């Protein structure tokens, strides 16, 4: 006969408000096999855990059910409490009577009955629980960082400085990300490139960092401590080891009229190019879609002029396998474009703003390139249509953001600050110019942020108009901005020379595809989900994968750097041990009944199932059975549901345990 203990938590009032916890405990005490039941105000508190430990010792309990919050919240807490009381931690189960009961039902009677049912189910289950011993697996002390923006660089440098090997993978030909595109940064107005480019060089020169630029993640296998990453290194058509970065190829390339996407298509670049002068690595790449040689087979100028003979037109994509123990995802963001509606996006587009057809309506990042000293205009504010200096510039905030009817309900967080910065940069460069800002609110939480915003309004004389813009249209060489000023309750019309839209921050295109490869979850906007909004802000629910920067949600540079360092610290914590304990939720094969049909091998997503030969003492083959490698098994249990002879069992989720729960209904 089992000796089960049931502990019903009040969770302050969170549970006891709608669930009669005393009644639940009393009913639990009557269940067969339950030898102790009680209720307590806060089970997760220190006295609550002591109560559990004491009861285990005093009543000789061989199983424990804690009826409290979700096991996703506190299963670890109570299992370790059970463990310190001398009980196998896997003999401790949680009955979720908070998230699944007290918080979602108002009727006290119904909620109490449901809570009792949930407890009874878990009591039935815990009786069938087996003692399990955690599996130890070796940890590969190498980290993968995906994304070479400021987040990825920071995380890579931190981990590398701690003495671990880091593989940094960047999709573009150069690391640097968006920060390399910015002109100056709020709230200090220090030049972005001046603080970014040294970090880029540090990352590239660090002895512990392997850099794969112009590369993408092809596939991800394995699990925490033991990932196998396949990286697709796209063909640069330039042999990196030979290239000296002299730049003659770019200078001599006859095809020079390709819009430069780094400059938001304001400038032009040749077909063989480095995206920007400070690029790291300073190795060019041939844009095959626009290269005359690749299009017509004639040209080959770059190959002729290249001294070291680094040009290789026949180069192909190569696949590199990197074993790593942890992954930091830092894929960053992109700005929502009003011109086109992205495929499958919930966003509806901005027809009233001309759908991006008005040349002097640009986004914030384009303005950064205009203001940047290394930008296409050399830092002069000149409008794209005719290259004239704009005397009236209208900035529109919250374009796409905080607009539920447009498809995005969140605040993009950085726009209030960067628009204030833009008005200042503009004023510093065009002294007689006037900046207008249409805004909903000025959101300036952050150290020295509000002071910075006030400076824009009070000292730099930007005119802030509280209200929304309804329409933009071209009139002669002006862009007419029709909006409202809700402070005075009037319609406003401004004939602007240039309009800058602070468009919404969105995750990178393809963020969902990468998430599927990594097996991490993401929200409806494709921002990656952290394991817990407050207590695990950098961890993914998938063990061994961490998040840094704007791929998790809109973030400014200080927040991004903090999160990147936090993710690095998590990786270092993991690498501090040479072996890792894994939950022993793995499948096991009953060799006596297995007939080696190996359906399990067909359905196993991890390739954990192998054939095993059973031999007698003379070494003669008796028969073949399936064998599950516990180090590779992910614990999904698909094999068990598939097995026709019921010879596979997933520890922790055995048929006996599940059936016991169903029987108790």
């Amino acid at each position, binding site marked *: 006969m089992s000796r089960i203990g049931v502990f019903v938590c009040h969770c302050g009032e969170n549970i006891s408000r709608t669930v009669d916890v005393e009644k639940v405990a009393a009913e639990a005490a009557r269940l067969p096999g339950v030898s102790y039941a009680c209720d307590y105000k806060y089970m997760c508190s220190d006295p609550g855990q002591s109560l559990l430990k004491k009861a285990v010792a005093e009543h000789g309990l061989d199983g424990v059910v804690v009826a409290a919050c*979700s*096991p*996703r919240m506190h299963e670890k807490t109570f299992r370790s409490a059970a463990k310190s009381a001398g009980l196998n931690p896997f003999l401790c189960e949680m009955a*979720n009577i*908070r*998230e*699944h*009961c007290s*918080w*979602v*039902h*108002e*009727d006290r009677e*119904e*909620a109490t*009955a*449901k809570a009792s*049912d*949930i407890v009874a*189910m878990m009591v039935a289950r815990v009786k069938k629980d087996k003692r399990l011993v955690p599996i130890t697996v070796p940890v590969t002390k190498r980290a993968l960082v995906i994304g070479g923006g400021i987040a990825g660089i920071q995380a890579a440098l931190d981990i590398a400085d701690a003495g671990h090997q880091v593989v940094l993978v960047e999709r573009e030909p150069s690391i640097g990300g968006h920060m390399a595109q910015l002109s100056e940064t709020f709230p200090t107005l220090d030049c972005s490139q001046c603080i970014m480019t040294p970090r880029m060089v540090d990352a590239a020169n660090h002895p512990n960092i392997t850099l794969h630029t112009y590369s993408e993640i092809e596939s991800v296998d394995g699990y925490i401590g033991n990932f196998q990453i396949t990286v697709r290194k796209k063909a640069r058509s330039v042999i990196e080891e030979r290239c000296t970065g002299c730049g003659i190829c770019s200078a001599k390339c006859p095809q020079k009229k390709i819009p430069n996407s780094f400059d938001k298509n304001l400038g032009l670049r040749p077909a063989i190019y480095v995206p920007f002068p400070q690029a790291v690595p300073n190795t060019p790449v041939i844009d095959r879609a626009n290269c005359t040689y690749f299009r017509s087979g004639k040209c080959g100028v770059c190959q002729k002029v290249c001294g070291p003979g680094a040009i290789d037109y026949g180069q192909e994509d190569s696949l590199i396998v990197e074993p790593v123990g942890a992954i930091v995802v830092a894929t960053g963001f992109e700005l929502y474009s009003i011109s086109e509606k992205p495929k499958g996006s919930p966003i509806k587009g901005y027809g009233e703003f001309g759908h991006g057809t008005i040349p002097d309506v640009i986004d914030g990042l384009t303005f950064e390139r205009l203001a940047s000293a290394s930008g296409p205009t050399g830092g002069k504010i000149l409008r794209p249509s005719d290259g004239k200096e704009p005397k009236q510039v209208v900035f529109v905030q919250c374009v796409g953001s905080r607009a539920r009817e447009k498809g995005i309900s969140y605040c993009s967080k950085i726009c209030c600050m960067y628009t204030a910065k833009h008005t200042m940069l503009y004023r510093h460069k065009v002294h007689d110019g006037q900046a207008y800002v249409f805004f909903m609110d000025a959101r300036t939480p952050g150290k020295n942020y509000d002071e910075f915003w006030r400076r824009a309004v009070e000292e730099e004389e930007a005119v802030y108009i509280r209200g929304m813009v309804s329409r933009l249209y071209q009139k002669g060489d002006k862009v007419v901005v029709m909006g409202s000023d809700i402070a005075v309750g009037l319609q406003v019309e401004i004939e602007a020379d240039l309009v800058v839209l602070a468009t919404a921050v969105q995750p990178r295109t393809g963020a969902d595809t990468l*998430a*599927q490869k990594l*097996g991490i*979850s993401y*929200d*409806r906007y494709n921002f990656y*989900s952290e394991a817990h909004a407050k207590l695990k802000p950098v961890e993914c*629910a*998938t063990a061994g994968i961490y998040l840094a920067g704007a791929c998790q949600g809109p973030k400014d540079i200080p927040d991004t750097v903090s999160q990147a360092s936090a993710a690095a610290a998590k990786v270092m914590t993991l690498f501090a041990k040479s072996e890792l304990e894994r939950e022993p*939720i793995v499948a096991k094969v009953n060799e006596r009944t297995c007939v080696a049909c190996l359906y399990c091998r067909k*359905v196993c*997503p*991890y390739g954990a199932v192998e054939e095993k030969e059973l031999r007698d003492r003379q070494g003669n083959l008796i028969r073949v059975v399936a064998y599950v490698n516990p180090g590779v098994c*992910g*614990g*999904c*249990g*698909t094999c*068990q*549901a*598939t097995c026709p002879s019921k010879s596979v069992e*997933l520890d922790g*989720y055995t*048929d006996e345990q*599940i*059936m016991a*729960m*169903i*029987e108790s*209904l």
Partner: protein
Amino acid sequence: MHGHKEKHAFEPKIVAFVCTWCTYAGADLAGTSRLQYPANTRVVKFPCTGRIDPVFILRAFQKGADGVLVSGCHPGDCHYMAGNFHARRRFAAFRQLLDFIGVDLNRLQFSWVSAAEGGKWVEVVTELTERVRAMGPMPEFRELEAEECWSGAIDTPELKEAYETIP
């Protein structure tokens, strides 16, 4: 705030088989968001919908469930890469089998509810509860169990006779 709640003559029992990564987390989110839904559902947690054996569904019906919900991650979002695809294929076949033996398929619902879809969990559970409530109890399987339950005895005349006939 607490509106008057309608009392029904029949309250169905719903068993939900869910995966821990998406739907269980989605149901947790419904809780943290304090959304309200009928209290008829009892959740059984699995690592993955791929682990769910159709036998569990039959057993749930036998043990008094009037409706069964199976829910996991959206296709392509499975924590274990492909478990939900196996589940989908398995249940597509299983549904036809249930249909063949005369189970009203309205009692069985499959859905995808992600960890971010607390609202969808509420919708799915509420809809199924209301539908099954309208259909009334499902006694067929329960009776079946009582009738055909094997006593466990092995020395009955019937078994002996069957044994003799084995050539």
